[in-house]
């Protein structure tokens, strides 16, 4: 019997000559779609979104996307039901959003073509509740008054 170290184990996608690492052409298609969406955003303000989990991407495809859509000036970390990172790429208006759960698993990944991704905006209901909370904080403290009465 040979030892474990004698068993040749190859990790898929680890080397460039693995089939799964070749660009499939999907990255190019996505990049062309982004270019179209950017033109629309610039001309009439319409927003666009591409779900990166909706199509099969090889490691080569991902490498191509990450090379072209390199990080730009804005990087935002959100902590809501697990971390989310939103990065504006070197192309203004093209945002790469990665949602993770608290285990670190990626649950959704989008390319958003917009002036500001929806997840960054404060929700009006949260604003309303936050404002009311701040008012309560600013009101002369009822508990202090109670304590002075004692």
């Amino acid at each position: 019997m040979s030892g474990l170290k004698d068993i040749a184990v190859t990790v898929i996608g680890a080397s460039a000559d693995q089939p799964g690492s070749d660009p499939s052409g999907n990255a190019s298609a996505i990049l062309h779609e982004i270019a179209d969406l950017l033109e629309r955003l610039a001309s009439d303000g319409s927003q666009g979104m591409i779900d990166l989990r909706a199509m099969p991407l090889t490691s080569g495809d991902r490498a191509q996307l990450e090379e072209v859509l390199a990080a730009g000036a804005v990087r935002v970390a959100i902590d809501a039901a697990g971390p989310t990172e939103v990065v504006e790429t070197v192309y203004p208006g093209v945002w790469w959003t990665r949602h993770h759960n608290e285990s670190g698993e990626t649950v959704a990944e989008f390319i958003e073509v917009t002036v500001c991704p929806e997840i960054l905006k404060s929700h009006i209901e949260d604003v309303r509740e936050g404002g009311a909370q701040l008012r309560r904080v600013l009101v002369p403290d009822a508990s202090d008054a109670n304590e002075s009465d004692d």
Partner: protein
Amino acid sequence: MPDSMKPRDAGDAHEATLGERLAARGVSRRAFLKFASALASMMALPPSMGLVMAQAMAQAKRPSVLWFPFQECTGCTESITRSHTPTIEGMIFDMISLDYHETLMAAAGHQSEAAREQAMKDNAGKYLLLVDGSVATGLDGAYSTIGGQTNLSWLTEAAKGAAAIIAVGTCASFGGIPKANPNPTGARAVSDVIKDKPIVNIPGCPPIPVVLTGVLAHFLTFGSLPELDALGRPKAFFGDTIHDRCYRRPFYDQGLFAKTFDDEGARNGWCLYELGCKGPVTYNACATVKWNAGTSFPIQSGHGCLGCSEPDFWDKGSFYKALPVGQWGSAATLGGAAAVGVAVGAAAAYAARRRQDKIAKGD
């Protein structure tokens, strides 16, 4: 008793919207938007639907849900409940008022049956009926009873007041293992018994939890059930075969197959088609959603797909024999399914069909 198990009182807490309930639990609307976006992604809805779903669900009231266990192993319940919050699928228990579930409810015996009858009465015409397990129909259903009543009578009675029925798991969807030859109990699918209600089948042994979440989210968002395929399965999750979305697919396209479970091909992670993988004819989302918090799925662990979410999978021959032509469909349909997923050229698809024909013929 968990809040979701409490008998429903008219008015009061049940009037709160889902958004209000989540906010009270400290789930921000930003987190909820994230949840909805991830769910829309999993359901293959347009990405912009995440915002629409978040807005609609936040305003929705939780529907009453009755969950009936028939000829089942509780694996379906295990699958759903092993999803820990705050995972996406874990949100399911925030989205519904689970008014009856034998395994989860604190009540037992006559109390639990009273809760079931009360919920059916209070929510007549509006509740969702979830069923896991097949329905024993032999000897008028006497093979499987609860509290002295047959599953068959429970189902037919509860179906009358249900807005819709969701068959959870392969047994409820297609009869599953209880229906396997020689099917001594006369096991049938829910859809074999009930013909006059909308039924969603969520097969899988067990089913993928997030599919149930997705169906419920669709119901809450749009007030309707999602689009179904010919077998009553939500197309969003069952639109592609395992093979279409398998990460080993490039090996298949290049004709690189494992011939045994310990050969070089197996070690290299090549395609398991020749080892009996049923991925090409199995419609489910395992290859994309995966299992155990997204860790893996059977093919990633080195074993072919058993086809557990397909009708009669148990009686379709060996799990370890390459797909035969005829039993699971022709090689032409296999090739057709193969051509749908990854963008491969027509020549590659043709080559794949020829390869499948050769393998099926034992060449």
